[in-house]
């Protein structure tokens, strides 16, 4: 029920990101969402994309410091308060969020996050009737 995300370690230096993006481009991988957070010396670039396993192998084989992680993605109706509902479910269960980002896809809002316990988070979200996105749904939504 989780989806794959690429987490890439990048140095805070001009030109490091584009090298990675070009490798994905050459492999014909399409980005769906991406985010970069940073510390003083380095950043983590997180990417949701088409064919994440192949994307991961491409980057890994090119020597990029990358890992393939599992994150939860929830589709929300594009109206006020839906994010609060989704996150409220987790907070009632005492589940913490490590990081979260969101994007719009096919008229829906998508929340992507990793929690300290993805399994319990998924169970709680299912009980709360949340629309949990599967990997194969991503490409459909994108249309």
């Amino acid at each position, binding site marked *: 029920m989780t989806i794959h995300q690429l987490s890439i370690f990048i140095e805070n230096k001009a030109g490091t990101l584009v090298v990675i993006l070009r490798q994905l481009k050459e492999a014909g991988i399409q980005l769906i969402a991406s985010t970069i957070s940073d510390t003083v010396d*380095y950043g983590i670039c997180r990417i949701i994309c088409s064919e994440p396993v192949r994307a991961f192998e491409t980057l890994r084989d090119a020597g990029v410091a990358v890992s393939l992680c599992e994150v939860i993605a929830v589709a929300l109706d594009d109206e006020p308060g839906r994010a609060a509902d989704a996150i409220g479910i987790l907070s009632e269960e005492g589940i913490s969020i490590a990081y979260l980002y969101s994007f719009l896809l096919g008229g829906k809002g998508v929340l992507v996050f990793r929690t300290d316990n993805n399994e319990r988070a998924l169970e709680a979200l299912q009980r709360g009737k949340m629309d949990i996105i599967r990997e194969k749904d991503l490409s459909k939504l994108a249309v």
Partner: protein
Amino acid sequence: MAYSNYFNPEETLDREGIERLQAERLRSTVAHCMGSGFYRKRFRDIGLSHEDIKTLDDLQKIPFTTKQDLRDTYPFGMASIPLSKCTRLHSSSGTTGNPTVILHSQKDLEQWANAVARCLWMVGCRPEDVFQNTSGYGMFTGGLGFQYGAELLGMLTVPAAAGNTLRQIKFFTDFGTTVVHAIPSYAARLHEVMCERGVDPRRDTKLRTLVIGAEPHSDQTRRRIENMLGVKAYNSFGMSEMCGPGVAFECPEQNGMHIWEDYYIVEIIDPVTLKPVPEGEVGELVLTTINREAMPLLRYRTRDLTRILPGECPCGRHHKRIDRIKGRSDDMIILKGVNIFPIQVEQVLVQFKELASDYLITLDTVDGSDYMTVEVELAGSNIDDYAALQTLERNITRMLRDEILVTPKVKLLPKGSIPQSEGKAVRVKDNRKQYQ
């Protein structure tokens, strides 16, 4: 009260007197070394008898002793007297590699203190002075070495030890400190903090003499520090294998360091051919201790590069002068007075499975202080977690600090960032200008 210019009569020996004393002490030292299992075997292996060593020229027959020998005989294999007759040991840092141990008898400690006292007396220290030592105490020989020497001379000593700069400055002003021992970068730091606190070293302190050593520095740096603090600064040379400080020291001429030849026989060799270099040329300093009891070392390769300064010194001492240390004939790094081998860093890094095998140590001088940066490459696991990366960075820093005794800045890099070199990997980039 009128004092002599000299602390010991040996200081004023002429060349003939020095060499006669050296030959005598060499003979007795070599005979004494037969009490060491290490030297007994070494002599037997090449069919050499201690009785073959009669003159200073015979020294050439004796094989070199190296740091590796000290490591191989760790901890007590090099001792020439029973352990029960030893009263102290000093050991090099290092928990992963084999450290080295230097043993001292009570007489060795007294002789060591005498050598340090002689050095301090030479640059004008007298019992009326107040001596403050900013060296770390404990295993670092700059602490206890200067302490005992300064006490023997009769100064009031302030064993402030390392760190706590504000307290150091308070001691200067409150106790009327006149003589300070500090590594050059710390002397600069003291000045910086004095400025911040509105303390004028010329107006608010009685500082007059600074002893700087352990950290290679240029004459320019020395002049800068002298101007900052309003003192005369004298270069000091020593190493734990030779006791510690007190091996060689500048006289008031500030032109080369007199090496005490009643304690040591000096050779300068070509580190490749191992043959003596012509007088006055740069080579590796080789020292034979001729005044040690617990653990004499014969023809010890210091790995320090220097030269003998030609000519007579106007101060009247005939003990040879060595130039500032010009570098090393091995890969040892000297940072903040601490000796570090890149292999120590490597041995820490290999313990982290998160890291790839390449690393780069960079040394820089920022505002007069030296810093070490260790760049490491992530092997690629668990990159999604900032907290984990920061913990990793902290753990590497802590383990390196425990191993090398200075705190480096650890920098995580993506794999492949550190340039690959052909042949022998470049592990150290030294951007400091310490050997000028």
